[in-house]
């Protein structure tokens, strides 16, 4: 029936074939593929890191500290004599974990909350909107800092701190989407023929909301990575022996004025590439799935 057609076309948009993706809409398709390749390669590299790192990334003094890239250490060594190549290969793990967990938490909390609040309407909706606006008004990194301090170190805690900052974005996007969808004729029609609220949610609203959620999620990923780097910069990262690009970035900053460029450069490049991967995917997807979507860039 009509609702199946609606469903199919929505899903068809979300999971198009890769080939048609590249051909369609020009740059957007290319962006998504580029982003996906970039991200996938980094993920693969990180997963394989226990096997492909030439040295242990946390072992100190495997080489003379602060040697420039050479044949033995292609990316040089840092001030504690650790091999930079190994650290670069293994360093993405922390960022990916933090980003993944924070996005997961956001999705688990933000999406249902947004759906529920906008569906219910009335006082409940106003109440949640108020809370979300308050959190949204808060300078993100400050909230993240405060939560990190309260919760302590660790991947989950850092992810939680970041998630707290981003939930309002999901909430807002979903809420505005739902509010506009609720007015659409076919939803009204479904309502008038007595469809349960849950059914409407599942069949009509959710598939329409999904594209926006996907877009926000990819941007959220990129932001989570950058925020994680920022938190490490301020000193709230993980304990020192876990290989982490954010740590190398912060450490490398101190080493840069004296000419040791390799510590900060490679770590910085990797962070940029990872964030870039997700952003490219987000860019492309947002153009594809909803080319006329009002680009409210919520962070």
């Amino acid at each position: 029936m009509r609702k199946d057609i609606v469903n199919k076309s929505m899903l068809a948009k979300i999971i198009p074939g890769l080939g048609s993706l590249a051909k369609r809409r020009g740059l957007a398709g290319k962006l998504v593929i580029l982003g996906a390749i970039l991200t996938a390669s980094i993920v693969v590299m990180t997963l394989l890191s226990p096997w492909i790192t030439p040295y242990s990334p946390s072992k100190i003094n495997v080489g003379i500290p602060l040697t420039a890239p050479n044949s033995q250490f292609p990316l040089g060594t840092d001030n504690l004599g650790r091999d930079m190549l190994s650290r670069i290969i293994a360093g993405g793990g922390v960022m990916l974990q933090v980003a993944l967990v924070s996005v997961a938490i956001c999705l688990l909390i933000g999406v249902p909350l947004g759906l529920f609040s906008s569906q219910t309407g009335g006082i409940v909706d106003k109440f949640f909107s108020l809370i979300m606006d308050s959190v949204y008004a808060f300078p993100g990194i400050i909230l993240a800092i405060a939560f990190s301090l309260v919760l302590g170190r660790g991947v989950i805690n850092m992810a939680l701190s970041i998630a707290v900052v981003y939930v309002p974005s999901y909430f807002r996007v979903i809420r505005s989407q739902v509010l506009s969808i609720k007015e659409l004729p076919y939803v009204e029609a479904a309502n008038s023929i007595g469809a349960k609220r849950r059914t409407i949610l599942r069949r009509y609203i959710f598939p329409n909301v999904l594209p926006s959620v996907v877009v926000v999620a990819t941007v959220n990923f990129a932001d989570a990575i950058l925020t994680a780097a920022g938190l490490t910069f301020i000193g709230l990262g993980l304990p020192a022996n876990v290989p982490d690009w954010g740590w190398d970035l912060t450490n490398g900053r101190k080493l840069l004025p004296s000419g040791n460029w390799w510590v900060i450069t490679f770590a910085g490049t990797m962070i940029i590439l990872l964030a870039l991967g997700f952003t490219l995917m987000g860019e492309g997807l947002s153009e594809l799935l909803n080319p006329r979507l009002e680009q409210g860039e919520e962070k």
Partner: protein
Amino acid sequence: MKHLNTKDVKAVSKMIAIVAIILVIIIAGVAAGYYYSTTQQPTSPTPTPSASLSPTASPSTVKETLVMGTTDSVETCLDPARAYDFFGWEIIQSLGCPLVEYQAGTDQIIASLATSWSVSDDGLRWTFNLRQGVHFDNGSEFTADAVKYTFDRNIQIADPDGPFVGIGYGDIISNVTVISPFVVEFNLKIPFAAFLSLMASQASCIVDPQYAPEAGATWSVNDVVVYRDSDPRGSNPMGLGPYTLKSWTRTAGKDSEIQLQANPNYWNASGGYPKTKNINIKMYADQSSLALAIQSGDVDVAFRQLATTDIINMQHSSNLKVWTGTGAFIQYFCMQEKYAPFNDVTVRQAIASALNRTALVQTVFQGQAQELYSMIPLGMFGHTDAFQSFGAPNYTLTKELLASLGYNANNKLTFDLWYESSGHYPSSAEQALVIQDSLQASGVITVNLQSLDWAGYRTARTQETMQAYIMGWYPDYIDPDDYIYPFVQSTGGSWLHINYNSSTMDALVANARGNTSVAIRQGIYGQINDLIVADCPLIPLYQSSAFAVTKTNVQGVYLDITQQWRNWLVYATGS
């Protein structure tokens, strides 16, 4: 847009012309007003050239102004009753003057506002003869009254933030008596051998009663002189020092700039001090910014804090000079004796034998620090390399000691090592990594690293939740007592919360504190060091070196054990 006709166009043009003329008149008037007001503003006072300068430098070759860069900031204020931070003390010492001071480059006490002194046989009464002919800003003469005023005030204020409470002046000094206008007497509660060192401390600088006014019946915390915007003289109660405070800009609790200007009333002005008439101190947010600033020539002198890598790099630079000196800052390894595993002295000794100080100093500080084998630093009497008796690292001994308790390669000694992560100490994370590495290299120890930011770290220390942790220490006064009493004495060391109590140690410390003979004290401190090795409550790690980086034309930098940065000795040559 509406369709235009010629009548409208003419009217509009006329209107525009009138408005334009009026605007021109107004702008001219306003501009005239501005120039009028700017020429009326008082010009900054030009420093009066000093009457006589040091014979080695003629007026034309010493620069009038020096720019210094630092990452420090005055933490609270410039009142010695409250100020207890390095930089606050540095400025206080430039603005004020103590009774005695250290000879630059040594740990010898020489005359300052007091010309001579003596101590009674029981060590309870110190008498100082004061310098005559020294004046405050307002022309009144410096007498013994000012000395009594200073110490009465500061002790009575008893600011919990300040050194008078922190060091315990009130527990040492019973009263200050004026014998005659230029003779003052200190009566002590306990014989305190380090009293002269205490008097040479920045906290003991004499205040200017006019700017540290009496208020009400007694002094209280509310009388502490705090920062006042646009009022540098009113922001500090000092006087008699080589400089006066020309300007002090502080935004949101952090300094942005301090300007010092030569004080013509300084008692040693006739000796040509201060060498540089004006000093501008510029504050930077962190090491990297400071490093960039000195490299790009924005500042003439960079002191505190620079990263080790930058310092090493700048040693190769041809247009910068790197000054090195003894540091008095030490770091040490603490172990919580209340719980296992560190409640057993054997375990503590095993750790001491496994620590590799060479790796620490070489890897983290690139050789720009010194290995420390005693709680009393190098350069101070009482220092002995007691901890070298372990031979570090000595994994054979480690394995032996731990084997006696049942630890071996399959059953490793495991504990958490904590470090602070907000930059309160230099390179804490790196130190922890290296220590972890050296301990685990023994093959029978596993170390887990944990960290907290400084505030959390402090609380955890008080709550005694950390098994092993790294701490640091800056001295309050230059005497071995300040490196022993606050650590291993039962009450003195209670803030450290390692729960070490030994009556033998307490007796030795009290003995060393009271005795005025240096030779005898030296012997006692030797015994104390040996006892520390035997009981192993804490393990000294390293002693810092002090660094300053300046342009090549800068002279007069003294980095000695006193850690005093003497602004009045620094100068730059050239035009």
